[in-house]
């Protein structure tokens, strides 16, 4: 009896009925609503998290800001493999991703991209690897997951909508859609340790700026995380409402 209990408490893939298993190492996502729903209350460490969106650019990267900022702060590296756009350093620094712990890898796509991902995942301990693979098969995903396990890294793969229909060995699969009140609605397609919980809505966060103009819209409220962080270089009110005066230096 003891050995079964031990198995249940240490193996995330096994669980009893409706209880969630506890054997998973996780890092908090920084969004309380999401943390509450995820097994282990965070992103699985040493495994792949897939983020599936209908259209790239609808908030999937910003979802990771709190975790990536934490990773950077602890001195660990964040590696971007073949991002689809140009990363803007000033904005990344503003959200907490320290530039001296950020690496960008450009391979030209295809097998080389997956190889680079695997090397990045195998290397060292700790940190996060983010990739945007064009085509990746089940066995390639499995290989990446094993690589992530060996170094306890966080691995985030951003995938197009049709990937949701394919099967995948990833530990966590989230599907993101635009939600009400300009938030993001997250469907948890697959997770380890319990049945997929209910979808989560989280508010989409972006900062307010700009001069006074007649089409003011009240912006979405900041999450608890952002309101506590001091954002350097801009004076923002805590609730993000109303116009904010920031003038770039005029030459």
């Amino acid at each position: 009896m003891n050995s079964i209990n031990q198995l249940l408490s240490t193996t995330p893939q096994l669980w009893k009925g409706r209880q969630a298993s506890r054997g998973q190492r996780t890092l908090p996502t920084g969004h309380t609503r999401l943390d509450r729903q995820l097994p282990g209350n965070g992103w699985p460490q040493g495994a792949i998290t897939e983020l599936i969106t209908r259209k790239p650019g609808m908030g999937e990267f910003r979802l990771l800001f709190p975790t990536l900022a934490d990773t950077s702060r602890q001195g660990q590296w964040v590696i971007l493999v073949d991002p689809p756009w140009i990363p803007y350093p000033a904005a990344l620094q503003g959200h907490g991703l320290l530039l001296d712990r950020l690496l960008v890898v450009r391979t030209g796509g295809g097998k080389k991209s997956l190889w680079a991902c695997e090397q990045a995942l195998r290397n060292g301990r700790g940190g996060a690897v983010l990739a945007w693979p064009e085509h990746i098969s089940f066995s390639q995903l499995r290989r990446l997951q094993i690589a992530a396990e060996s170094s306890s890294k966080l691995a985030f793969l951003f995938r197009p909508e049709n990937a949701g229909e394919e099967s995948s060995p990833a530990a966590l699969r989230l599907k993101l859609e635009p939600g009400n009140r300009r938030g993001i609605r997250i469907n948890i397609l697959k997770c380890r340790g319990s049945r997929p919980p209910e979808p989560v809505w989280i508010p989409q966060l972006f900062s307010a700026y700009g001069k006074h103009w007649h089409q003011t819209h009240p912006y979405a409220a900041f999450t608890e995380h952002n309101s506590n962080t001091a954002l350097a270089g801009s004076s923002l009110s805590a609730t993000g409402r109303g116009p904010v005066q920031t003038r770039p230096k005029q030459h």
Partner: protein
Amino acid sequence: MPERDEAAERQALQRLAAWCYQYSNQVYIPGDRNGLFLEAGASERLFGRTEHLGKRLQQELGQLGYRALTGSAPTPEAAWLAAPEGLHIAEPGHVRRQLGPLPLDRLHLDTARRVAMERMGFRQLRDLLRLPRKSLTRRFGPALPDYLDRTLGIRPDPRAMYHPPEAFSSHLELPAEISSCQGLLFPLKRLLEELCGVLRGGDTAVQSLHIILGHEDHQDTPLKLGLQSPTQDANRLLGVLRERLERLRLPQAVREIHLDAPTLLKFSAGQHSLFRDTPAEQQQDIRQLTERLQARLGNESVSGLSCVQDHRPEYSWRPRTLDERPDCTALAHRPSWLLPNPKPCSIENYEILAGPERIESGWWDGHDCRRDYFIVRDTHGCTLWAFREYKPRRGWYLHGIFA
């Protein structure tokens, strides 16, 4: 039948002497025979008894491709006699007894003298040792008793020590042509092991290697390997080499390999912690990852990022090497991603959420602009960064994505 290449043999002995430096700080290359002398008594506590050291040397030299016979004795000449028998003589007093039965052709004597001795009826070393010195000197000249004295330890035998060189250079002729890059890994592994033995012996490390692959009818193929930090580790060098070879296309089959390490740097071994958690080790890990990726994908494939002081977003960033410190400006209200080029768009398709932020600048290099930036949202729910340009061209463009 391949000819005996004396120059290559001498060069190989030089390299082996440097390699043996990791086992002894007193190495001597005799000019007249194919072998090396190592002083082993001082490091007996480190490497164990001379039998064990001898076995270890034989094994490791075997891995490098050499067949070695080892033996030890209190004097160099006695050790030379002991080596073909595999004897390890511990006490000076035992030399006479253990080496006595050796036939005369083992001794390091010239042929004429040996023939003369055999004619006189001497067969073994002990026959010579039984004769009084004066008769030996009278019959064979002073060189022979001097040699015997040195062998027995009665007379000292000082030798000029070998000093390891400042650079490493080696050359391997392949017994059969190799036409695949993967096939080259095996001989290269041997050369790298030899190099690393030399490095360990001299407490040095390499940060760059030059490899030249020789073909029969074609110009040599050069290969340059650069690392992010000096190393003594053969596995690390082999890893980087393997990735580099993936990129290489051989014009012809390879017949010989030259390996050069032009500069040997001082090596300081760092402390290794169990979990590789310290920032210095993380830095080392990232460097190793970078050199592996760059070896296979090219130097431009891996970079960090840095900000540039410019108001125009497209000029306000640049890639940097990992050694540089990044310039950081934190602008949290800007998008995380920029499009490679601003894309013309029609603003009717988007809902404006915030703005404008006026950016106006760049008159000094001719790319001046006046733009009003807005945060907009499209029908799919993506939040984008668009601007209305007044100068130089009027119009609406998409510039960034708040992904």
